[in-house]
């Protein structure tokens, strides 16, 4: 007659810290994978063949200075240069031609419409205004681009997620320890 075997109840092995230890142990491999990602990103962003509009001082159709030349010379200050028409909703490049880049920093911007579309759509709203014209060159003194603090706040609020996770994680650790 066989003796009754004692019943064994398996309790889960609690390994506090096992989660982060597992991830931390794999981190070097992850970072090496990150290095491979860097190479891929660089390859994807490596310079494409020059397209239309690249500087060519010998081409009268595209009399833009080559790189290095005219670096201190603003678009609007080049005599005889007439920027392309900056029509509303014409997209980023038209705005960029009139220093719409400055809109992001809250600097005046001429004739810029819907500047938010030009950038990441985060934090710029642009009023419409007619820039004064000096000769044939528009001068960027017209509209005021204002930073929308609520949009910026909304865009930045995602960065609070790690804080929420850490607080929740701590509460969980306290509850189960």
């Amino acid at each position, binding site marked *: 007659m066989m003796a009754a075997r004692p019943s064994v109840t398996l309790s889960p092995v609690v390994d506090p810290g096992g989660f982060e230890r597992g991830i931390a142990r794999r981190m070097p491999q992850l970072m090496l994978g990150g290095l491979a990602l860097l190479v891929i990103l660089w390859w994807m962003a490596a310079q494409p063949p020059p397209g239309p509009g690249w500087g060519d001082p010998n081409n009268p159709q595209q009399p833009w200075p080559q790189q290095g030349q005219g670096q201190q010379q603003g678009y609007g200050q080049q005599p005889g240069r007439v920027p392309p028409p900056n029509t509303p909703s014409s997209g980023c490049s038209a705005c960029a031609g009139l220093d719409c880049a400055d809109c992001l920093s809250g600097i005046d911007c001429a004739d810029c419409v819907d500047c938010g579309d030009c950038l990441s759509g985060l934090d710029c709203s642009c009023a419409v205004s007619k820039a004064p014209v000096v000769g044939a060159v528009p001068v960027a003194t017209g509209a005021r681009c204002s930073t929308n603090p609520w949009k910026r706040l909304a865009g930045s609020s995602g960065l609070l997620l*790690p*804080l929420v996770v850490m607080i929740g994680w701590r509460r969980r650790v306290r509850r189960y320890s």
Partner: protein
Amino acid sequence: MRPRLVMLLEPWLGSLAALVVPSYAVMLVIGSLLGAIVIVDEARRLGFARRDSLAVLSVAYACGLVGAYLVPAVQGVVAWSDNGRFVAPTGMAAYGGLIGGVLGGSVMLARMRRPIWTFLDATAPALGLGYFFARLGCFSAGCDYGRITTSRLGITFPAGSYAFRDHVASGALSPDAPSSLPVHPTQLYAALSGVVLYLLVRAMPSDGDGRRFVALVIGYGVARSVIEVFRGDASRGHIGALSTSQMLAVVTVLVTLAAWRRARVSSG
């Protein structure tokens, strides 16, 4: 760069491409969470309970965010006092985040009466890790771009990017151009420095005396100062001949070395 990466992946992934290519904020969140996990693990090996580590990290992260936003705000005020024109601050500063986070965490550790340098040692590898992800986020957003270059390392950013708009504004590029002029991929240089710092600091023996953290601060300061030479964005600000970050690197390294030396002397 994100729009271009999405465009390149769209033939294979369709509309999923926009979800796969992360934005700046997403990369920052991923880096922060992975960094927190690594810190909790490292701190546990150095004798910190997980709940204590997480309490310190929560405060440090919040203070880091404040510091990261504060530096551009101070730069805006300085520019306003210089030329009378207020420039609304945009973006974040990595050095502000580092300084704010370390200060906030140190205050919390002092209040908890826990060894500050030991915990800072635990954070050192994760700071390199977080920097790696943050700079990949910069690459995605196109900020912090490099100087114009003719070298084979040069990359171009699409129309509408920060580099593109600055090149157009300076008169070096037509608004009709498809992309910016080739620039140094400074975001990728910085991300690479994050990987190297992580691997180097992680390989150092950690006995909790702060050596690893000091090594990270020096390594980061040197790497950042060198990379600044290749930066092309003018908005990061200058103090004399040095950029703001180079100046902060010098000050941070000196202050860290002095504090570490003082802590070692006082502990005998």
